[in-house]
């Protein structure tokens, strides 16, 4: 019982790291980025190449995955995404679906279509018992890493100058511009950072979620559910939503394997019906 809770929390934490970039871009620019999972996949494959082929230690691979994915994100943002912000949601959807298709086929071409695993150090394998609760070492690592990241993100958002600029831009981009905040710059940085986080999530999650070229399509719906359930105006919303989804998904699949997959979809639809703004969002007049 507690083990399931523990696994669910690890899963949820992972989802949060994967999805929080998406929720910020959506809230900040009203931009629907369905290609977010492609960045996560990029991070996963970068780590895979570094660790399995170049023989880098796993813990060195993670930061590299973050930095490289963030750079790729920044590059894409500056060259391609900027042209699409002003377009309609339909155009944004088409554009990002196109990117997903391209990334899926490109990774298939370069890396092959089979599912791959990153070699994790033996110290992280297996599980141990603590007060009768079975705790997977790797899942513990995920919880600790993602927990620290979440705290750091919250501190950046609430404590730094950049954080207050970001929050101002999310609340009202027009007024923020009027106050002299470079909203586009803030956005580019946030986009790159969010992509980097997704890449890190992809690298961390390869062990649990699996990694193959259809990753962006398979987990797209999870990201979107996190964002819709959590709302886009803060980071605590998606965080709580991720935990809820993670625990519900793991518990659902364990207790009612036949209907496990429906649990999260049902949560999403019920939330959308009752609170179209998201479960944890303020009822803002947007």
């Amino acid at each position, binding site marked *: 019982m507690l083990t399931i809770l523990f696994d669910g929390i690890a899963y949820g934490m992972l989802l949060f790291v994967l999805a929080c970039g998406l929720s910020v871009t*959506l809230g900040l*620019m*009203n931009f*629907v980025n369905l290609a977010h999972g492609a960045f996560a996949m990029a991070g996963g494959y970068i780590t895979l190449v570094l660790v399995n082929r170049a023989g880098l230690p796993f813990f060195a691979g993670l930061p590299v995955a973050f930095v490289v994915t963030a750079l790729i994100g920044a590059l894409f943002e500056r060259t*391609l995404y900027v*042209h*699409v912000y002003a*377009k*309609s*949601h*339909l*155009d*944004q*959807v*088409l*554009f990002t*679906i*196109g*990117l*997903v*298709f*391209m*990334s*899926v*086929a*490109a990774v*298939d*071409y370069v890396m092959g279509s089979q599912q791959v695993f990153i070699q994790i150090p033996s110290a992280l394998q297996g599980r141990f018992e603590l007060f009768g609760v079975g705790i997977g070492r790797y899942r513990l690592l995920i919880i600790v890493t993602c927990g620290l990241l979440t705290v750091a993100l919250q501190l950046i958002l609430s404590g730094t100058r950049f954080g207050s600029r970001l929050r101002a831009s999310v609340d009202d*981009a*027009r007024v923020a511009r009027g106050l002299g905040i470079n909203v586009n710059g803030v956005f580019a940085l946030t986009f790159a950072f969010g992509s980097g986080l997704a890449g890190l999530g992809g690298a961390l999650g390869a062990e649990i979620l699996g990694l193959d070229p259809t990753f962006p*399509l398979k987990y*797209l*719906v999870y990201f*979107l*559910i996190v964002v*819709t359930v959590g709302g886009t105006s803060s980071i605590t919303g998606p965080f709580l939503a991720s935990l809820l989804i993670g625990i519900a998904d793991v518990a659902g699949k364990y207790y009612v394997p*036949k*209907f496990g*997959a*429906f649990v999260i*979809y049902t949560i*999403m*639809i019920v939330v*959308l*019906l009752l609170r*179209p703004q998201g479960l944890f969002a303020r009822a803002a007049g*947007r």
Partner: protein
Amino acid sequence: MPSPVVAEVARRLARRARWQPLEYLFWLAALASVFLLRDRHLILTEIAWLGLFALSLDLILGYAGVISLGHAAFFGFGSYAAALLAKYGIVNEPVLALVVSGLAAAVLGFATSFLVLRGSDLTRLMVTLGVALIMREVANQIPDVTGGADGLQGVVIAPVLGLFPFDIFGHVSYVYCLAVLFVLFLLARRIVYSPFGLSLRAVKGNPLRAASVGISVNARLVAVYTLAAFYAGVAGGLLAQTTAFVSLDVLSFERSADLLLVLIIGGTGYLYGGPIGAVVFKLMQDWIANLTPQYWQFWIGLVLVLIVLVGRDRISLITGGLRLVVERIARRWNAGAVPPPYPPPLAGEGREGVRGEGR
């Protein structure tokens, strides 16, 4: 005796709905393909049902402005319905079974349409996507009914109308699909040129204003969503009947995404976008798949990205301009009997797109 205003409105509506020379040309070409392209009937069959499927998306996207990422839900539902009806001999005659499948999809569409009424574009994307995913998961979880991941096998389709058995060259299936497409197209054309169709356009333009001039926005959306689900269900039924096989693939996300591409290639909001897009899409897919069998998805994605970067506006300007030129020539050829239509012809109207709230 109707008032002069009503009579004038009726006259203008009738004039808008008049058949253009190009439309005759389109259907003549379709008819000609039955006789002239006999060895291509298999791919033409696919084009026909895909065209119908895209037409159904056009009804909600092009006329009512509802973005859907889950239209495959209705397509797949109709598909499974048609296959199951045939397999268990519930309704043997294909045409009748097709209608039943369409109605089944329409029921699902009606039930889920209330979810689509809420919220913004993003919410709609999510809800439609979610419905399609749930349908796929349902189909996956009841393998004793749907065949699960292996697909539904052992489907035997009876001859159409009891007279024409399906053959392996696709001759019967193409004529069958084309006939269904034509009949449903006529129906759709009648609907979108009716006052109901006009009110849908008003809803798409601005739901708030539409409501304030007395259009019941929600009722219209429910109606058109249900209708589109019926069309998608029929298209799915056609697929199941012409291939005598259904797999989980009919409910996949890729199918919904490809469908958007088909419609965008053809253009939204003038009904021919679906069929034309289907022709271009299938030919392109066929061509690319011959070049790189495994990676054709990459090029499909590239086309999507390019379409957005170049701008759908500009593309539809070009095609719209072409259409205007051809229409003008045709009109002159008709000895100028037709006065210039008012309000302006359809050419420019596809350009509005679906606007999010400007920020």
